[in-house]
């Protein structure tokens, strides 16, 4: 590029020149920068507020829907028929072995001592360890609800059983009196104890239909021993007194 004398002179002079801006120049620029910068900040602020509200709504919806699902699922498990539980796939494998155990105990009807130890010993090998750990949360929910169910159903199911057992004992007493001409207190006492054991076994089997027997036996057994035994003894004594007076009147 050729350098002309005029070009060179003009360039030198103009390159060195400095013109100070007016005093209010920065204020003008500050206003102009504020005018361009503030709408962006407001926009971001509103976007942030909107995002916050959306997040709160989403979290609340998820939370409440999760709670509803948590409440619905156990009731569905409780209401499900036993056949469906048996046919379910691997996701509900924990429930299936319990049904199997129950079926076995119902058929065999082992004594009370065996039932007290059986559920813990039998159910563990049937359930794979990994599936038990995976379904631990579901199991706790499933195992908790039947407690209420059993507590509600127990008076209904036990009272007819007691009545039938009393009727059986009375029939046995009457039969023995006919044959032997009388029944000793020791014999009546042994018959009552046997009837009590049978009732206990039946009641435990009833619990095991939907509940882990080991978890419930310890809670229920004391109550059962206290209430059921007293009730049974009272009813048997009353029945025995009636039978005895009836036999005495008949002999007379």
């Amino acid at each position, binding site marked *: *590029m*050729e350098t*002309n*004398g*005029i*070009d*060179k*002179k*003009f*360039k030198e*002079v*103009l*390159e060195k*020149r*400095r*013109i*100070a*801006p*007016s005093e209010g*120049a*920065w204020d*003008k*620029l*500050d206003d*102009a*920068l504020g005018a*361009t*910068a503030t709408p962006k900040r407001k926009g971001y602020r509103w976007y942030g507020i909107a995002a916050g509200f959306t997040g709160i709504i989403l979290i609340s919806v998820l939370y409440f829907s999760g709670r509803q699902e948590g409440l619905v699922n156990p009731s569905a498990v409780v209401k499900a028929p036993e056949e469906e539980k048996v046919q379910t796939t691997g996701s509900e494998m924990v429930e299936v072995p319990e049904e199997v155990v129950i079926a076995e105990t119902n058929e065999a009807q082992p004594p009370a001592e065996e039932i007290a130890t059986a559920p813990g010993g039998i159910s563990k090998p049937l359930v794979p360890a990994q599936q038990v750990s995976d379904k631990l949360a579901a199991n706790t929910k499933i195992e908790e609800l039947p407690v209420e169910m059993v507590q509600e159903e127990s008076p209904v199911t036990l009272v007819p059983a007691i009545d039938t057992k009393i009727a059986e004992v009375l029939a046995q007493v009457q039969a023995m009196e006919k044959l032997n001409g009388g029944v000793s207190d020791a014999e009546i006492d042994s018959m009552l104890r046997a009837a009590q054991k049978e009732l206990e076994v039946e009641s435990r089997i009833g619990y095991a239909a939907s509940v882990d027997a080991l978890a419930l036996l310890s809670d229920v057994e004391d109550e059962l021993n206290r209430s059921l035994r007293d009730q049974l003894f009272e009813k048997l004594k009353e029945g025995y007194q009636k039978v005895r007076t009836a036999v005495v009147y008949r002999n007379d």
Partner: protein
Amino acid sequence: MKIISFYENQKVLIKRAAKGNRPAQRMLFEKHAPRMLSVCRQYIKDLHFAEDVMLSGFVKVFNNLHAFRGEGSFEGWVRRIMIHEAISYLRKNQFVVFDSEVLEQVAHTELIPAPNLDEEAIQSLIDALPDGYKMVFVLYAVEGYKHQEIASMLNISESTSKSQLFKARKHLQNQISTLELSRSAES
């Protein structure tokens, strides 16, 4: 004092200004504004209008500061923005006419001896040029752009740029010789 020395580091200043730090922006403005106002004044006769153009140029500088990668000089980057802002101002507010007469063969410029002129005299000579001549002359002679770049910036042909420069020089030469004659007559 430590804060001032810290802010004197231009890279730090630019980073802070890019994030919207107003004190940093002010320091950059105060450092470069006199030089940039001089650049704008080369194109625009009125100093107040030149300052307005410079301020709008600084708004663009600070709003686009994140685009400055630091590869070249910061002053050169700001200067290019100011030049574009001045040219767009002249195009919007003044009817810029480029002489349609294109010289077929621009004669090689005569090597004119450097005149003895001060800042004001030189600026008045530039102000006296028609806007078409003035833009091409300043871009070529002062800013150092090539004709190809000037042609693309002003949306004219390269030959038009060359002829505008030739005519601008001739116009200036005549004015300088007139000025020197009047000075010699006064002395």
